[in-house]
């Protein structure tokens, strides 16, 4: 370890204060803090610094994403080969095909996003922010596999520029950047983001493929030919990383266990979604409405969105009570948009973005209510002593 430390210190030399490449220090500092806990100290306020800084929090989320990502890569290949040949597919064969498809998406997403982050870090003179570690992995996981790579690049650029840098960088954004990237792609290039051709890789080359998602079939009034177990395990067409509810739950367990993700928001989302699903089941006016409420929680991006997107600590509500309200409303709106507007079968994206906007308002009223309650208590206690 000493060797590595010395090597980095040596490497850092020309980037030091007053040295030749001082301006580009954020790049080398990013590498340093990626490997070691930063050695700067707090200047004011509380003097306790936790070793678990933003970078390590973000890495936890990335690790939690890995199971779903690996399954997503496998599923990409599986869907393609299954539609092509039918029958069972060998794991490695499917995984290799999927990797060929998904890896470039991840590379493009990171390359574009980190380049913009780096330019702003040098321009504004602050460190490169870690937030993009997660965003850069989330974006390819919520895109359809066949989307052209340049569209991912444009969407990521939009999300980082308008969603984050315009508001002042990491920690200041109102909307979840990864979802913003997806929303941008969805409205800008709708033919590549919905329909029945984009969810299975190279579906256009395979004749007679019915590669629509479950929600897509429901909205179009087709029969769903997937079992409940398929929906849970994830062997269904969909965006790259969102299909397997099982492995998303593994990720959720990691987030809750490490305290990185809020279980209140996750549970709230499931409660809200279930209530809305039950209401629609009771109404039952069309196929989407009579789709069983528990299956609503399994299909589409619901699980992925609730676990990895809604819990984004920056754009979610901050107060404990606010988290409950926020989570329940997220679940509520996800299912509502999904069912009421078949043109947007993926209501999860819009539901979470909508609640992101309202999160500060929720927090405001929770705080105000608390102040009011405490004032009342104070007045009551004064009355008693008087």
């Amino acid at each position, binding site marked *: 370890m000493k060797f590595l430390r010395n090597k980095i210190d040596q490497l850092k030399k020309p980037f030091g204060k007053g040295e030749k490449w001082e301006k580009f220090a954020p790049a080398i500092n990013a590498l340093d803090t990626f490997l070691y806990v930063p050695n700067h100290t707090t200047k004011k306020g509380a003097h306790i610094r936790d070793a678990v800084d933003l970078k390590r929090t973000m890495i936890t989320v990335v690790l939690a994403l890995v199971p779903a990502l690996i399954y997503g890569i496998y599923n990409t290949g599986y869907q393609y080969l299954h539609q092509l040949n039918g029958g069972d597919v060998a794991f490695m064969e499917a995984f290799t095909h999927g990797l060929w498809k998904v890896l470039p998406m991840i590379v493009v997403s990171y390359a574009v996003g980190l380049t913009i982050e780096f330019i702003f870090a040098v321009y504004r003179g602050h460190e490169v922010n870690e937030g993009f570690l997660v965003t850069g992995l989330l974006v390819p996981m919520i895109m359809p596999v066949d989307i052209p790579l340049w569209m991912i690049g444009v969407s990521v650029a939009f999300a980082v520029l308008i969603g984050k840098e315009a508001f002042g960088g990491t920690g200041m954004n109102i909307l979840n950047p990864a979802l913003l990237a997806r929303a941008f792609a969805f409205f800008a*290039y709708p033919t590549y983001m919905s329909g029945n051709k984009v969810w299975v890789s190279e579906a256009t080359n395979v004749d007679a493929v019915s590669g629509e998602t479950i929600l897509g079939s429901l909205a179009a009034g087709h029969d769903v030919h997937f079992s409940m177990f398929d929906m849970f395990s994830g062997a269904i067409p969909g965006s790259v990383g969102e299909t397997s509810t099982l492995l998303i739950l593994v990720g959720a367990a990691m987030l809750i266990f490490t305290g990185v993700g809020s279980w209140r928001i996750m549970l709230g989302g499931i409660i809200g979604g279930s209530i809305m699903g039950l209401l629609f089941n009771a109404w039952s006016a069309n196929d989407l409405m009579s789709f069983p409420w528990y299956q609503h929680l399994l299909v589409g991006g619901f699980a992925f969105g609730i676990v990895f997107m809604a819990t984004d600590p920056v754009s979610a509500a901050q107060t404990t009570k606010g988290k409950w309200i926020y989570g329940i409303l997220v679940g509520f709106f996800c299912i509502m948009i999904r069912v009421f507007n078949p043109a947007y079968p993926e209501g999860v994206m819009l539901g979470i973005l909508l609640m992101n906007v309202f999160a500060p308002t929720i927090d405001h009223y929770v705080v105000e209510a608390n102040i009011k309650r405490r004032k009342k208590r104070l007045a009551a206690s004064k009355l008693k002593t008087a």
Partner: protein
Amino acid sequence: MSKKAEKSPIFLFVSEEKEPLFSKQNRQLVSDPLNDNNPITVQVLGICSALAITVQLKPAVVMTLAVMAVLAFSNVIVSLIRNLIPSRIRIIVQLVVVASLVILVDQVLKAFAYDVSKQLSVFVGLIITNCIVMGRLEAFALGNGPWKSFLDGIGNAAGYGLILIVVAFFRELLGSGKLFGLEVLGHKGVTLAESTGLYALGYENNGFMLFPPMALLTVGILIWIQRSRNRKLIEKE
């Protein structure tokens, strides 16, 4: 009106002394609204029409000319009668002047450019509620001579039009791949093989650009660029 506009030096002089037609101050009346005192990006006036008619360049240009005509002549007329208007009813007098000019412009458009006037639909009529028009009448024409008011009207309409045209340029280019209706990026066929230009490489039009939110975002980006280049526009806290 924003505080900035009132503090700006051009509102301080009301002198009527003789000066050359295109003195430095007069030139500033035209050039100031193009950048430092832009009605859209600095004073944030006239946003609604900027969002509504910037999908294509042609209507944006026509709208600019229409606003320019209305703003310049209403400024001149109000400036000429500024000493006759009782200040209690000045708003209604200004409205009558503006409304008559807007009707004139609307009729001219209908007569000579019918399809563009169809595209602009209610937004020609809505020039009357464009905050820039009333803003300039109140802030400038009521206190200045006709020539200065005319220049002020031209300048502010040009500042408004500049933003409109820049926004429309990007929205039409990125949203439908055209400029003034010409396919500058190549022709998009049904299949890749039938396409030419950029479309043959797999390029796609950005449908988001056609939605009004993108106009707002484009204006926002323009404001961002303008303020990072022109530091004095940034408010002190």
